[in-house]
């Protein structure tokens, strides 16, 4: 049997206000809009179960999207190998950089997205990912090295 439960009004409001923002983050992390949408739905589902305990909803949802993107990436790799890069803007230099970003190891891509799209500091990224700051720095340094090499 199923019982219908209604989201708290605040959650509905957060959903309306931030869905697109979160889908964009999910898209950058996965390279797929559909996966981005799915990540956001999963994040809201997780959040709805403990909404009253969440002090910073947007931060919580972003963390959920990032964490679920990691899980999804592992599954995708198992199922069909690394997904192919997809040109999206029809601006060659943008598409080139996007393709390079998608070839980064997933952990490094997450750090790059959070650093240069979300504009988070190393410490903020470390807190969000619950990993040591030194590890984040190492991931970022390696990612930048790969990007420089690919762009030569």
């Amino acid at each position, binding site marked *: *049997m*199923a*019982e*219908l*439960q*209604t*989201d708290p009004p605040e959650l*509905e409001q957060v*959903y309306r206000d931030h*869905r*697109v923002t979160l*889908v*964009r*983050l999910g*898209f*950058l992390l996965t390279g*797929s*809009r*559909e*996966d*981005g*949408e*799915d*990540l956001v*739905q*999963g994040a*809201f*589902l*997780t959040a*709805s*179960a403990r909404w009253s305990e969440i002090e910073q909803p947007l931060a919580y949802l972003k963390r959920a999207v990032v964490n*679920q993107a990691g*899980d*999804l990436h592992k*599954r995708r790799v198992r199922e069909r190998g690394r997904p192919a890069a997809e040109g*999206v*803007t029809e*601006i060659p*230099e*943008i598409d080139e*950089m*996007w393709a390079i*970003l998608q070839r980064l190891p997933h952990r490094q891509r997450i750090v*790059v*997205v959070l650093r*240069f*799209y979300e504009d988070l*500091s*190393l*410490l903020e990224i*470390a807190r969000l990912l619950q990993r040591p*700051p*030194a590890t984040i*720095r190492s991931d*970022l*340094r390696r990612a*930048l090295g790969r*990007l*420089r090499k690919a*762009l030569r």
Partner: protein
Amino acid sequence: MSVDDLDPPVEPELDARLRETLSRVAMRVGDTAPGPGASPVLIPASARRPRRRRWRLTLTVIGVALTALLLAGFAYLFGPEYVTEQKLVQLREDALVKGGAEPNRYWLVPSFHTDACGRSMPGVELLAESDNRVGAEWSTAGVAYGEPVFPTASASGGNGVPSPGCVRIDERGWLNDPSRFALTTGRLGRHAASEEGDWALLVAVHPAVDTLRVATPGSSAHRVSTVPRADRPQGPRYAVIILPATATRIRIVLLDEKGVPVPGGVKNLKLVR
């Protein structure tokens, strides 16, 4: 020295190019644009993963009825007419959705039963292969879109108590509100009372609802297309959602043809064993 002090140096050109790339790519996700290559999944989980367990459709009669009423929908169970080969073939040909693998296939078919007054039932029924062998009694569950209007005994001179049988489904009020939906839940499992089987959710939605986005804790969300009955292509739409037996919560978002959630179209359901 703080970690921020150790922020790896980035050339201004690379920094700018990264920011511009990520920003431009992100902006490709608009407020209303559906994703490219977004391919709504007609047959959900059960068709996409191997199934080790033999299943059959089992439903708790009271549970289903209560669920449907609680959700302001209309659900029903059918028996005890008997399955014939001819009818089975016809139903399979007319199926809106089919899924599973032999001998555990299932079909979502236009309702083919009649009510106690001899009128064709609206909506759709879920027909499970293992539950509907030739010669056996039909064992299906159905769902219809709209407000059930039960005749009362007062209509025939009684005391106003709802009487079973000739129920009528009134779609008019629901058609003004795309967030309205009807749901029937059941179990796919070998034993009716075992509660070991996967969940089967039959959903009836507004004609504007093109897709359902379905999420359960611990697994990635997926999409399920809705489909109308062939005889009412502009009418209500239907879908069947199969969930793992262990699922306890589900979030369904009703999406229009552009992939945008309809107002009020976020539904959280608690699946009660």
